[in-house]
């Protein structure tokens, strides 16, 4: 057992920090530091900067434009980026659709799509969930019927994150009615400019427009947009889930927010002491910190298992649950810290114009708390995650 990073790894960390000093745009940094929403163009700009340095699609194989960074270096890179509070990458292209295409796609699909994903020229969104199919995704009903050179797609997808920005959507669709539901599902790529697609906003409790309904009315999709053959959709979806699993915890970001919370709490006086010194509040911070440390080492154990055996061990399965619970806990502590000043409320489009009432960091705190209710629901709810662990790991 050895806790230290190698000299080479430490040098790499410095390299990333130096890169950030030189390349992280100030206008984006300013918004990020204030926790204001970013524009589409900000996100694209930042992704392109990372891409140029070869640090965008780091999990991709080198031959497709990925990196050959060791698992430890990937970890370091992601952590330094998170510590500096750089924008979260939009995962739908680079972490989801990209890996599917280079693993299951045709040469033509790879040639056409991968460079555009690498360069953030195409904004992808994920069309899995439907009004009737959330946790039970395999029950999905959106239909793709083959008619000559096309599939004709009919149905509705929901909760589609940032579909209002998207150029393309990857969908799970039903190409066949089979007795085993999973067998009739296919994975298809659809141009959002196709005729018959309609996007309708769903406003969430934080007042933001982040998710959408996407309707398909006789949308013609060229048959070569199918990935991996008819009926392969479910296997691809499972493959993707494995791909997602570890990244989703975002522990470095949680640590950053927890540190920020401590710093801010140390500036709030409640009588003699600061809020940070307040026994009850401090206890909660400490409990959160301990759990976070445990999760960090669970992640490191996962990393080490991958480096050794090429696959994560069972411990990795807990990261999504623990990560999302910790995220939610920290947003909750921010609300608690602010007291009454968490109550003044500005919607997404009102933020960014220095609207805070009270401390200048106040305005995004409540929206953030509300928004983060989602993290225990999406990407497989925490109930579903526990079911999976019970079955796959505990053998129940």
């Amino acid at each position, binding site marked *: 057992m050895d806790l230290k990073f190698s000299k080479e790894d430490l040098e790499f960390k410095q390299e990333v920090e130096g890169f950030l000093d030189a390349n992280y745009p100030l206008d984006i940094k300013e918004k990020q530091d204030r926790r204001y929403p970013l524009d589409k163009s900000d996100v694209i700009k930042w992704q392109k900067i990372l891409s140029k340095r070869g640090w965008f699609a780091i999990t991709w194989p080198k031959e497709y434009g990925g990196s050959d960074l060791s698992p430890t270096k990937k970890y370091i890179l992601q952590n330094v980026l998170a510590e500096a509070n750089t924008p979260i990458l939009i995962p739908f292209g680079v972490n989801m659709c990209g890996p599917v295409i280079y693993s299951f796609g045709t040469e033509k699909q790879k040639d056409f799509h991968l460079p555009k994903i690498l360069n953030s020229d195409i904004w992808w969104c994920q069309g899995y969930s439907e009004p*009737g199919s959330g946790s039970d995704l395999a029950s999905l009903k959106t239909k793709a019927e083959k008619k000559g050179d096309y599939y004709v797609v009919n149905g509705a997808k929901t909760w589609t994150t940032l579909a209002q920005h998207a150029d393309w959507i990857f969908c799970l669709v039903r190409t066949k009615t089979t007795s085993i539901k999973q067998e009739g599902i296919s994975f298809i790529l659809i141009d959002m400019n196709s005729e018959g697609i309609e996007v309708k906003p769903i406003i*969430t*409790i934080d007042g933001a427009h982040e998710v959408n309904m996407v309707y398909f009315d006789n949308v013609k999709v060229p048959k070569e947009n199918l990935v991996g053959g008819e009926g392969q959709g479910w296997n691809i979806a499972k493959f993707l889930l494995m791909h997602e699993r570890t990244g989703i915890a975002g522990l470095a970001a949680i640590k950053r927010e927890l540190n920020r919370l401590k710093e801010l709490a140390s500036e709030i006086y409640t*009588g003699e002491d600061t809020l940070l010194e307040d026994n009850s509040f401090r206890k909660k911070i400490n409990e959160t910190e301990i759990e976070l440390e445990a999760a960090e080492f669970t992640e490191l154990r996962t990393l080490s298992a991958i480096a050794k055996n090429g696959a994560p061990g069972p411990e990795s399965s807990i990261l999504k649950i623990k990560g999302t619970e910790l995220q939610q806990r920290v947003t909750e502590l921010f609300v608690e810290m602010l007291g*009454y000043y968490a109550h003044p409320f500005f919607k997404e489009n009102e933020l960014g114009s220095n609207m805070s009432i009270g401390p200048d960091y106040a305005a995004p705190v409540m929206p953030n*708390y509300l928004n983060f209710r989602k993290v225990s629901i999406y990407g497989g*709810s925490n109930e579903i995650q526990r079911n999976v662990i019970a079955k796959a790991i505990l053998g129940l």
Partner: protein
Amino acid sequence: MDFSFNEEQTLIQNQVEQFIQRDYDWETRQSLAESDLGFSQENWQKFAELGWLGISLSEEAGGFGGSAIETMIVMEEFGKGLVLEPFLETIVLGSSLIDLTGNAEQKKEVLSSVIEGNLQLALAFTEPQSRFNLSDITTEAKEDGKNYLLNGFKSVVMNGPSANQFIVSARTANNQRDIKGISLFLVDANSEGISTRNYKTVDGRRASELTLENVKVSADSILGSLDKGYEFLEKGVDIATLAICAEAVGIMEILYKTTVEYSKTREQFGQPIGKFQVLQHRMVDMFMEYEQSKSLLYMATMKHVENAPDSKKAISGLKYQIGKAGKFVGQESIQIHGGMGVTDELNVGHFFKRLTTIGTIFGNTDFHLKRYSSI
């Protein structure tokens, strides 16, 4: 021992329930939340006509002489409809305080207008640094001949934008956190030197930042006696704490019932999600938290009405339970609704938001647990 309401109390409960069913459907509530005023003046007049505004005020003040029990009944029903009208702010916080402290003149002048529905109040008692400490006051009132000059800043003043009169807690003696030397002033909202910055709060209601700059008020506008405001301020906030807890109990009832209903109709994996045992247990816990909250609400309200020696302690115990239960019930309602739970369209998220602000208003769980153990 009897936990049932008497005839009049039952009548009021039915009246409020009917009002919400007939006049306060969800769409109406949402359009009021979005309106400039943030509530309906027409509804307010209706409350006046039905006698609700004076229900718990003393007969001397022109009210019906009811108690915190009547307030509890109204507020619990208001919770179920997530009513936006500032009953808590004007009637429970503002008017009760005037009723407790005011002289005959003040009561007559202010409370008769309140009861008729023509006057709105706001209690300006919090400052940016004060958190939940009612005696942490830097706003100053300096004697100036027969008058006082008020200077200072009050934060997140609930119902501030609609208030015609503010009750301002200010320091007339001693130091920032001293419980002595605090006085309560009745201040006209149009007084020179008052400025407000108004905004919406996350629960759909309205509040203000209030700046007082050399606001001149006469010595007659002191409520109660000089320097002795703290005791009444604490009592007034305790009464309002009971009321807001009643609102929370109403909200929790709606949330647990709505969630149970949803779990019976939402199907995944070929069965209603309510069939999954893990969700069943969670909903049972929601139900239990609601029932436990209701029990403490009854206990604390009755102790308050009977003026029991441990009444304050009971109120802090109640507020602690409401904070804890409200968070649990609110978060679980959203979780069990899945994606639907986080939509602005569904009422669940809005009930959750109000429970969240109630968790803070008049002191969060940490504050009340400490107060509980110190009494």
